[in-house]
């Protein structure tokens, strides 16, 4: 609540900047819809590419999503409510598969199980992709379900135990219903990731909406057809996003900052404890240790086979620039949302839409947008710099929400009294921002920057579509080598992406460990 005089100007300035940030985030998605609706040549709406793509995406989200939800819920239940050897370590180790993008897991498993690989059971085709999604994305569900089991349901679970419920009954009758909002939220994230995935589906030769966009774009040379498929995927994602928000209702998706209560746990029988151990260890081995180990082994064996230095520096500088640009937008939107008002809330939602939209969709939007601007003569040149600006714009549209979320959470921790204190001590809006808000939010800004950097580093489809000619990043060369069936050359860049992805995961697990230490 600000004074009606004096500070109005500043409130409006923040809202104005937030509105601009929102427009930047929303523009590529709007462009996709606009261009898709515009009359033009190209693939007929509803052509076989679209139908097959929709079926493929639907099937994969069902199969992979179900797998991720089952694995995530079961593992969360085990570490939250049961006592077995290694439980404490599994609690944070189970998050690690999140570090690897699906396409990296796909490449690793191809090398492991296809021609000449050490494992004779081939991971390929539809079920191979579903396996990759389930094993790589279950941590989303695990984190949400674990938060649900550990926090709001603790009392209900204890009550059920005093009423004599056995572990199995407790899981199905109390735990699962209570964790439902968390399962919905975590499952939704996994489903969105599956729908947005391009690299793994492409590698397994599957037709999904994401791969169909590429096929229309490159093979059929039909920009308009690609845009129409992108529009369908975008609208599906948005419908899904809104449905998910509704289903989740008021039950928030617990973030890493929540404190975990130590629950009284069931002591499992030796056989059951062994089963729980094997289950959790199996998830970590299949989701991280095995693929990571293989990539490391192959990468070391082929150290000098591929020169990845240039791609490495391209990745670092592109991800750095993209993360900084996105961070500014994310901070503006988060600050504006925190100060209240309809604009801030709308900005946060609009940024969330960008996050739900697959990278390929936003890339097409940004690309077409800049193409149109060039046609109108608003901007000149073609060159490398224009493509990079377009690419960073697409990253910002996709990832602003991912950056805004931790900043928002960091700002939420500020006592409202701090702002009031600063005001009664004579500090105007600018001084409050620089000397109070920003220094206190600095850790969450740093966390947001790290998350954005790694998300952009891992990003594949948008980078593939927009990158300037001959501008290769780690993700791009991993993809190209894998496409050329040179998996041994894809290993080193894949490994680097995996390693980079570990950084924010370790940050997350650190907050889990800290929360546990502080719990009573």
């Amino acid at each position: 609540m600000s004074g009606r005089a004096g500070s109005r100007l500043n409130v409006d300035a923040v809202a104005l900047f937030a509105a601009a940030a929102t427009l930047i985030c929303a523009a590529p998605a709007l462009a996709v819809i606009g261009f898709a609706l515009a009359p033009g040549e190209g693939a007929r709406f509803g052509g076989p590419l679209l139908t097959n793509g929709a079926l493929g995406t639907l099937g994969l989200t069902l199969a992979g999503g179900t797998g991720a939800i089952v694995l995530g819920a079961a593992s969360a239940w085990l570490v939250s409510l049961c006592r077995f050897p290694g439980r404490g370590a599994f609690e944070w180790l189970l998050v690690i598969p999140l570090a690897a993008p699906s396409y990296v897991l796909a490449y690793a498993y191809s090398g492991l199980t296809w021609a000449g690989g050490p494992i004779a059971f081939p991971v390929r085709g539809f079920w191979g992709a579903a396996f990759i999604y389930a094993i790589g994305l279950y941590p989303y569900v695990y984190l949400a379900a674990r938060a649900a089991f550990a926090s709001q349901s603790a009392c209900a679970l204890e009550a059920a135990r005093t009423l004599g419920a056995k572990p199995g009954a407790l899981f199905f009758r109390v735990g699962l219903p209570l964790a439902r909002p968390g399962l919905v939220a975590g499952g939704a994230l996994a489903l969105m990731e599956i729908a947005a995935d391009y690299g793994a589906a492409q590698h397994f030769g599957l037709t999904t909406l994401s791969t169909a966009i590429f096929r229309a774009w490159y093979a059929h040379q039909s920009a308009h057809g690609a845009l129409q498929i992108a529009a369908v995927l975008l609208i599906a994602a948005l419908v899904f996003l809104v449905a998910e928000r509704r289903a989740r209702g008021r039950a928030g998706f617990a973030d890493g900052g929540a404190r975990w209560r130590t629950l009284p746990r069931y002591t499992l029988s030796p056989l059951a404890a062994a089963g729980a151990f094997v289950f959790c260890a199996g998830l970590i081995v299949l989701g991280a240790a095995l693929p990571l180990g293989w990539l490391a082994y192959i990468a070391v064996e082929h150290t000098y086979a591929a020169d990845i230095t240039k791609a490495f520096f391209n990745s670092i500088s592109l991800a750095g620039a993209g993360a900084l640009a996105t961070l500014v937008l994310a901070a503006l939107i988060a600050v504006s949302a925190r100060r209240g008002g309809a604009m801030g809330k709308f900005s946060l939602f609009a940024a969330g839409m960008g996050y739900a939209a697959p990278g390929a969709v936003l890339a097409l939007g940004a690309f077409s947008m800049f193409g149109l601007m060039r046609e109108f003569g608003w901007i000149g040149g073609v060159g490398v710099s224009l493509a990079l600006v377009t690419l960073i714009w697409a990253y910002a549209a996709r990832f602003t929400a991912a950056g805004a979320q931790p900043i928002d959470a960091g700002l939420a921790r500020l006592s409202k009294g701090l702002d009031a204190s600063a005001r009664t001590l004579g500090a105007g809006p600018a001084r409050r921002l620089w000397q109070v808000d920003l220094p206190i939010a600095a850790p969450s800004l740093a966390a947001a920057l790290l998350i954005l950097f790694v998300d952009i580093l891992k990003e594949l489809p948008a980078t593939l579509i927009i990158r300037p000619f001959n501008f290769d990043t780690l993700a791009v060369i991993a993809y190209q080598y894998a496409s050329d069936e040179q998996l041994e050359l894809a290993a080193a860049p894949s490994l680097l992406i995996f390693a980079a992805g570990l950084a924010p995961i370790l940050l997350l697990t650190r907050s889990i460990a800290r929360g546990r230490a502080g719990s009573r």
Partner: protein
Amino acid sequence: MSSVTLSNVRRIYDGKPVVNEVSLTAPEAQVLALLGASGSGKSTLLRLIAGLESVDGGEIRLGDEIASTPKRTLPAEARRVGMVFQDYSLFPHLSAAANVAFGLEHLPRAEREAQALSWLDRIGLHARAHAFPHELSGGEQQRVALARALAPKPRAVLLDEPFSGLDPVLREELRQVTMDALAETRTTALFVTHDAEEALLVADRLAILKNGRLLQEAAPRDAYDKPASIDAAAALGPINTAEGRVENGAVATPFGAISARHLIEGAQARVAVRAEAVRLAPGRQARVIDVRPHGAHDLVRIEADGVVWRALAPARTVLGERVDVGLQPAGAFAFSAAG
């Protein structure tokens, strides 16, 4: 220093007035205590005076300056009104000294630091100047918050339940530190509390609030001796109430008559008797049904004709004993039931 004057101040949340036509004055260099239960609007009143919220009616003046009207709110940062928050709200990223120096931005750095240190010295925290808030105890944080609010020499300082959440011994000590600092700097202070004893102890003036309305504003002694209403009487300690008709200038209760000469003969009246004005002596009139130790006194419940009253009795009273009851006129009040 300035006086703080509120005239018919209103503040409305969701169509409901949380501060309703409140008029009062905090005289220059005096301590005004705002006493009320939670929901009485006392904290909102402070936020209005600080300029953190806008008034929906009436006006607030700081000295001669009009600070708030429904049309114009002088922003908090331009008011020079200090505030000590209930949770202290120290800046977690700044040391104790830097917290105190925050409001001294207009001074050169050396002067700023010197003043901050001198303030920490004054409140006995010189040695903790470089400690961060999380390294300070609750009492130390409270002192830093006080020094931070007073350091910029505000026109008035507002204290929102500054001692709640502290243990009684520390509370007493900090109250003394705070009152000394206020007196020494001759700062006008408005002090919110729900603790009647504390309000009586620290205030030069006392304002009693209930449901957003001002029940009474008076010197503490007057508020205690001449409550304006039953509610005002109840705000300053446990009371017993009864209703009856004024007959021969008095209202009869099961425990004795109460003088009501200022009321119209035959009118319906309500009476309030402070528990400490109920005197017990061995006798027959009433029966002791409950005895609870209450410091030097016992809080005693007595019963007669099915009516139960409370008494704060100095002597040790025996449960089940029969007593005679005397009502001290100074602690017994009659009000017209019509008003």
